[in-house]
């Protein structure tokens, strides 16, 4: 027991000392990155303190922009540093390999790109995921399309992280979305619609209207979720109208939510009907919000409904009207 206790204390104090030394080294590297112009000093740091250099460079590239970022990238390309990164990317320690992948993904040389692609076969899932994300940024079009095609197979968590790495406006991404939505694989369609929704950027690719009538309810839900960001088909009113009458309440709710953003005035009667007949609070609320967003007569009708009773419909209408009034008061202030 005494040995155990002594072991803990010794380990803690040696760790504290090691952290102190590492902290000093990190500080020295930061100074070198900020102020230093001498690449030989950087070369020496890459040889002597590789772990700390990885940590500082990775962190710095996470938030630095512009000329400062370019200067760090230039320093990283010196031979000693690059060979250290190429070694680190194969490290068994996932954190070290992941850092190396992230830094290498910023370099545009062939060997760096090849190392990133090679890391997609690393034994650690964390490193593989980091390499896939990096390749989405820097890989060639075919590689990017290949990675995007794997999205349906990765869990939601990985999907969130991958979407974070996608440059949405690139031709590759637009092509992926277009192909996926036009294809027959429902999982791929769902992934592409998720990507559109997560990106919150306008998609220039045409969205097939047939998705609104898909037999797969998940596709219909995601379609209406993504619709405000899509190039609307000519019959979008008919599509939204059909969505508001879908047999599944989740689809109706998403169609109503899309109406909040698109504000299709001719659909006000449909929204009002949905608002009156819906049973789920979510669809009632989205319908009410869409009516409120349209303003004018739609909003007046909503206000009348808010004061017309004590049921959940009236309560939700009252809340939506209240929120709108408060938002308007805030805007006036």
């Amino acid at each position, binding site marked *: 027991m005494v040995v155990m206790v002594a072991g803990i204390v010794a380990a803690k104090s040696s760790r504290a000392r090691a952290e102190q030394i590492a902290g000093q080294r990190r500080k020295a590297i930061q100074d070198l990155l900020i102020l230093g112009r001498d690449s030989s000093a950087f070369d020496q740091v890459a040889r002597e303190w590789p772990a700390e250099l990885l940590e500082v460079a990775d962190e710095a590239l996470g938030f630095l922009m512009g000329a400062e970022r370019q200067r760090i990238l230039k320093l990283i390309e010196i031979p000693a540093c690059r060979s250290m990164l190429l070694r680190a990317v194969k490290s068994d320690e996932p954190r070290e390999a992941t850092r190396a992948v992230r830094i290498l993904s910023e370099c545009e040389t062939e060997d760096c790109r090849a190392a990133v692609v090679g890391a997609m076969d690393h034994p650690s899932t964390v490193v593989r995921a980091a390499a896939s994300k990096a390749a989405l940024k820097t890989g060639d079009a075919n590689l990017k399309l290949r990675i995007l095609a794997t999205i349906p197979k990765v869990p939601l968590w990985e999907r969130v992280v991958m979407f974070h790495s996608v440059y949405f406006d690139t031709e590759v991404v637009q092509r992926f979305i277009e192909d996926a939505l036009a294809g027959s694989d429902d999982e791929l369609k769902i992934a592409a619609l*998720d990507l559109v929704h997560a990106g919150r950027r306008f998609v220039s690719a045409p969205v097939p209207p047939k998705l609104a009538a898909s037999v797969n309810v998940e596709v219909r839900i995601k379609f209406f979720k993504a619709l405000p960001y899509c190039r609307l088909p000519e019959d979008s009113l008919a599509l939204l109208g059909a969505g508001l009458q879908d047999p599944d309440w989740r689809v109706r709710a998403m169609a109503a939510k899309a109406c909040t953003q698109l504000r299709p005035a001719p659909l006000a009667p449909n929204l009002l009907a949905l608002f009156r007949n819906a049973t789920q609070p979510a669809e009632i609320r989205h319908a009410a919000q869409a009516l409120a967003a349209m303003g004018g007569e739609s909003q007046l009708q909503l206000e009348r409904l808010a004061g017309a009773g004590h049921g959940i419909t009236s309560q939700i209408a009252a809340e939506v009207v209240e929120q709108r009034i408060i938002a308007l008061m805030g805007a006036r202030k």
Partner: protein
Amino acid sequence: MNFNFSVEILRFSNEFERVVLVYFFALNFTYFFLMLIGFFELLKYGAELDEREDFGALNSSELVPPVSVLAPAYNEAATVIESVKAMLALSYPEFEVVVINDGSKDETLDLLIQEFNLYRSSRPANQDLPTKPIRGVYRSPGGLPLVVIDKENGGKADALNAGICSARYPLVCAVDSDSLLEETALKRVVLPFLRDPEQVLAVGGIVRIANGCSTSGGRVTEVALSSSWLVRFQVVEYLRAFLGGRVAFSTFNCLLVISGAFGLFRKSAVIAVGGYNTSTVGEDMELIVRIHRWARQQKKEYRVVFQPDPICWTEVPESLRVLKRQRNRWQRGTIETVWEHKSILFRPVFGLLGWIALPYFAIFEGIGPVIELIGYVLTAVGVSLGLFQPRIALLFFICAVVNGIVLSVSAVILEELSTKRYPKVAHMVWLVIASIFENFGYRQLTTLWRAQALWDILKGKKCWGVMERKGFGQAAAAQ
């Protein structure tokens, strides 16, 4: 009739000693096994976590499910404002904080209305779960995602049920309004829902002790140990429970306790099982057991998960009187839950839940203190009557103490190997010393209190007892 009283006592004592010995070895084997599993799981977890990238992606994603944070408050005027500010400053893409004022007799509601400039809203609540009447709903006009529900007093479980009915989002996070969540706690606790959105029904985070720490703006700014030995003993206990037991049970998907101070749930699952049980004082454990039971009866593929890094800081009792009340309540909660769900025990349909997890709680946590207490008493009686050799009794006591020390020190080692929240070498030294000293008096005292809880249950005691709060930072300032 040839009846020799001493011989009969000796025979009974010997039989009981045998039971105690078997119990002792079974208990310690289980504890060591749990600790070992915890050790490997924590190492694996630490190696897989890639902080910067993961949490950066979460901040801006539309795909991350929004969360309603539910904070029941009853007479929490001392801490509620700081806690709510900390909750509102959580780093998460979309969330709302729902504070449920459970008929407080102090100025909890008034303080909230004044501090956040709340107005009375017409926001409705669903009637998915029965609750005591709601007196009013208050919201912030400035767009703060804060909702305060004022209701008649019905207890913590009833308040949480009211919060669930009012919650707008598909995930609900139950927290104590006297606790402080770390800024990234919500993002960390939601990870299992993102990794496995189809199967995960509930996730528990770790609860740590804020006494002695410095706080500012609703955040723990400097982690330190309290100078109170009572608090240090509790720190060791919490480490042992969270880093050993819960990690291990979670690995086998039979985690039965998600602390009421910090747990994230799928709202639909909580509603499906009928919400929190208002008739028990251990509503947090009871809900988890009911979720397990429901999911297994429905033959669902599901998971109830413990995450070791989403941290919730809480104040623990600094007086024996309040600690006794708390432990009594926890013990009654455990026993009530095990009794309520006794039909799960050893039923094949419930798998490890029925064969390992619930029996563990029934035998080691439920009636364990009574067995331990009888063991102490019989040994003392046996020695004083000269029926046992004091040498043997002493040896047994030393074994128990050494074993307790090894387990506690192992928990401290786990902390040092995994989350490393205590920054100074001195903290480790004090924790190790506390791990040793807790075996001389503190452990026996808590055993006595827990055994008393069984008696209280038999008497029909139902009350919660009052937790006296100093307010965060007060303890540290006082030191």
